[in-house]
């Protein structure tokens, strides 16, 4: 294929590189197009900063905004320190110490990840509220009546912090553990020979070395905190996500909702910047490449008991107790609740999650392969933009999707009314198009990072060899890369699938009318104070949520010191 031999004048002086760049620029076009599409919601939200909303915004800014900001900040402080202490502490115990049950805790500490924050919130409310079993038992034992005693109110800001901390600490645990494992034992041993006690070695060597990873873990936990809608809504802790929802539906003010969303994005941006900063400044190069199995510090007697208790508490409170309660409720209510309706909710969830994960994986493959074919600043930037959605809260994306989709539907309907005298209705905003698009925007980073990591494991020489043997880029993708990556693609899809199953705010705002999923059903029943009735749907979500935990556990079991743990945490922006 001699490029443009017919009119060589066009290319006089052009280098082969320029020719080639032109030839495969379809990929650049594609990746940029996808990235632009994915960026639409964020751009729409950001653009609304400039839309005048007059009264409404002034009212919001005066009355509610300070509350939103204060609550969000308190949540971040509480969840940040909670996940930091639990995550780093347990990671240090299971990687650096030896005590009974350590091997079980290694993976069991991940289990709370399977529980969405709103599910754990509903469960603890059911347990701890006035009419719940705990207080009833207390009253029947002591004979007290209403108002005779003080009991902590679970539906409060501290309650929300506790709930979010219990399910989000695994992010910090996972990344700190990986960081501790990566550290060369030699470095730690040198510090011991230089006179440090094990604990001092941890504080002065291991912890500083792990700092970037810990910071990333906390940042991920905080992004999830800002994303949370179900917990804070149920606990009546007003934050941006609840504010966006209420301004949209309660006040019917899309523009003001978008401005709240933009304000929330500022929090996210600060978080991303802080995470980058802590990583950049603390870039650590491991100077020693020698790894051996860690000489774990034995904890005997009382210290062993404390270590076991410290590791057992998060697992118990974050997974076993709520899981058990859900199971008990589900068994109790299964007869009425698990019916044809329930099956249809499950089916809806399944369809949405399947479609979204297929799309997310396919798009991730296209972008990552484009980057592999010819890494260029344009494609790199496109990939970055396309995978930033994970940092953006679902409520923000929902607002950013609905505004342009509704506008587009309006345009289409106006046009068809004028030309063929018919209105197709809400073909975009009223169908699963909108909600699927929102999922892809939000979870593309999950599949992209998994796919990109999988591509990275394939030596570029395989591409070269296949090309020399007569295959074109598309043929290489289908004949070489995809078959090799098979398992990783499945994993990438599963991660997106589970995230979609759990997603609440975007689903709530964008789902078609009367199209309910398991997450929506759980939310609705809980809102009606039918906590026990919500349990079967909630339990189904938790059960699916265990899949990535199992995948991670397998990865952890395989990981050896020196080999990087395959971590979900790597999906950060």
């Amino acid at each position, binding site marked *: 294929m001699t*490029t443009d031999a017919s009119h060589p004048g066009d290319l006089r*002086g052009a280098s082969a590189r320029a020719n080639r760049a032109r030839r495969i620029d379809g990929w650049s076009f594609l990746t940029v197009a996808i990235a632009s599409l994915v960026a639409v919601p964020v751009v729409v939200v950001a653009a609304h900063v400039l839309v005048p909303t007059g009264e409404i915004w002034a009212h919001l800014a005066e009355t509610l905004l300070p509350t939103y900001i204060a609550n969000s900040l308190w949540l971040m402080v509480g969840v940040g320190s909670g996940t930091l202490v639990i995550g780093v502490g347990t990671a240090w115990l299971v990687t650096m110490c030896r005590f009974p049950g350590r091997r079980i805790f290694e993976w069991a500490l991940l289990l709370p990840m399977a529980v969405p924050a709103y599910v754990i919130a509903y469960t603890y409310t059911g347990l701890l509220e006035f009419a719940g079993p705990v207080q009833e038992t207390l009253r029947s034992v002591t004979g007290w009546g209403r108002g005779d005693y003080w009991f902590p109110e679970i539906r409060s800001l501290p309650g929300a912090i506790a709930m979010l901390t219990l399910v989000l600490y695994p992010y910090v645990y996972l990344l700190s553990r990986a960081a501790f494992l990566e550290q060369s034992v030699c470095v730690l041993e040198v510090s011991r020979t230089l006179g440090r006690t094990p604990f001092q070695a941890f504080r002065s060597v291991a912890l500083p070395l792990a700092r970037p990873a810990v910071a990333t873990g906390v940042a991920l936990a905080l992004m999830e905190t800002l994303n949370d809608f179900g917990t804070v809504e149920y606990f009546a802790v007003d934050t941006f996500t609840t504010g966006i929802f209420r301004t949209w539906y309660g006040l019917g003010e899309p523009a003001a909702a978008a401005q709240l969303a933009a304000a929330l994005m500022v929090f996210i941006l600060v978080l991303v910047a802080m995470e980058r900063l802590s990583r950049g400044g603390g870039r650590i190069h491991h100077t020693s490449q020698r790894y051996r199995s860690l000489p774990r510090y034995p904890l005997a007697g009382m210290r062993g008991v404390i270590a076991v208790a410290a590791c057992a508490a998060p697992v118990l409170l974050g997974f076993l107790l709520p899981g058990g309660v859900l199971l008990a409720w589900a068994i109790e209510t299964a007869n009425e609740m698990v019916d044809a309706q329930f099956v249809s909710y499950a089916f809806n969830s399944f369809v949405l999650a399947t479609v979204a994960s297929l799309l997310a994986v396919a798009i991730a493959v296209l972008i990552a392969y484009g980057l592999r074919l010819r890494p260029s600043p344009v494609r790199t930037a496109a990939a970055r933009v396309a995978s930033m959605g994970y940092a953006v809260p679902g409520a923000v994306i929902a607002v950013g999707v609905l505004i342009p989709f509704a506008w587009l539907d309006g345009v289409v309907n106006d046009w068809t009314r004028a030309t063929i005298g018919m209105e197709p209705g809400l073909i975009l905003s009223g169908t699963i198009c909108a909600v699927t698009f929102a999922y892809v925007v939000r979870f593309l980073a999950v599949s992209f990072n998994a796919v990109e990591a999988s591509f990275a494991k394939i030596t570029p020489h395989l591409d070269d*060899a296949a090309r*020399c*043997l007569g*295959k074109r880029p598309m043929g290489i993708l289908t004949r*070489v890369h995809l078959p*090799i990556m098979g398992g990783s693609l499945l994993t990438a899809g599963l991660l997106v699938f589970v995230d979609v199953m759990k997603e609440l705010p975007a689903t709530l705002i964008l789902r078609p009318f009367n199209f309910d999923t398991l997450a929506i059903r759980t939310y609705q029943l809980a809102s009606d104070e039918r906590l026990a009735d919500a349990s079967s749907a909630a339990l189904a979500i938790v059960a699916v949520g265990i899949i990535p935990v199992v995948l991670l556990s397998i990865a952890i079991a395989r990981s050896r010191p020196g080999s990087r743990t395959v971590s979900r945490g790597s999906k950060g922006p």
Partner: protein
Amino acid sequence: MNRDPVLTLEHVSHTFEDGTKVLSDIGFTVSRGEIFCLLGPSGCGKTTTLRLAAGLEPLGQGRITIDGVVVADETTDIAPERRGVGFVFQDQALFPHLNVRDNVAFGIEHLAQGEREARIRDMLAQVSMVEYADAFPHRLSGGQQQRIALARALAPDPPVLLLDEPFSGLDARLRNTVREDTMTILKQRGTTTLIVTHDPEEAMYVGDTIAVMRDGGIAQVGAPGDLYCRPVTPFVTLIFSSANQVRGIVENGHVATPFGPIAAEGFAHGAPVIVLMRPEALLIDPQGGPPPADSLGTAEGTVVNVRMLRRSVFTHMDFGEFNGERIHFHARNAGHFMPEEGRTYRVSLDPEQTFVFPIRDKG
């Protein structure tokens, strides 16, 4: 071997996208059936040359011709999949998800099934791997993987085969066998081959012609013997073995060395030169008899240390002060005569292995 050109590079220069200059104006021709070897240290641009020939890297400037067809120049850039060159990579790059048969079949899918099966059988037979047709790459040893990589690259019957350090991943014991087998196959088939290596012994072993590369240019091209016996620069001399060095100024066509003045023909009076003497050039005389007739000169040296290195004896010798510097030379003599440590011997200098070069900024 006729001189029918198969692969020609003319005035090829190349700069990476990050601006690093890798090749400046190189050119050479590989003739039909010839095994042409690019030899040079890492980073000299030899692998890039290979990738340019295959089309895996878009050409900067110059022209590349394969079998009379221009595959790359200022306006032409034939994609690698249409150049049809064979390429064997350092890491073999076998497709891990395909068994041996499918790996070999990968490049000949356009053939009719019967012909394809026959070709696969034939290729596997040539590399003695018939019984491994159903095995997957991870089950094969390094040497077996290398053979399959060769069979895969040769199956489409490419006009030219490119080999990028194909033996460097193998352990030393295996390397010689695999190298010998590979060369036998290539010679039997008469395959035109361009091979890259950083190992001078390998280059001399496999190459009909060697091009020594340095810093993106070609320092010297020639038959292995030419390069070893008539190097044109210190760099080419030193790539094949270490050498004892002494610097001096040419006076009336001669330069002073510890072995006495030696001829420096073609140098102006007062030109600074460097004299390189391979260790093999220092002949230690066990008897103290008269020096060989063609000797360039003799010197008395004291043995500091002696080591037997398989087929030769390596001797560290002290030749006292010369030009205000302590002269510590190495001698490497065939056979098993071990000079005594501490004793002084007469050493004569062999002209075959002694070279005089002008001193430039870049030696």
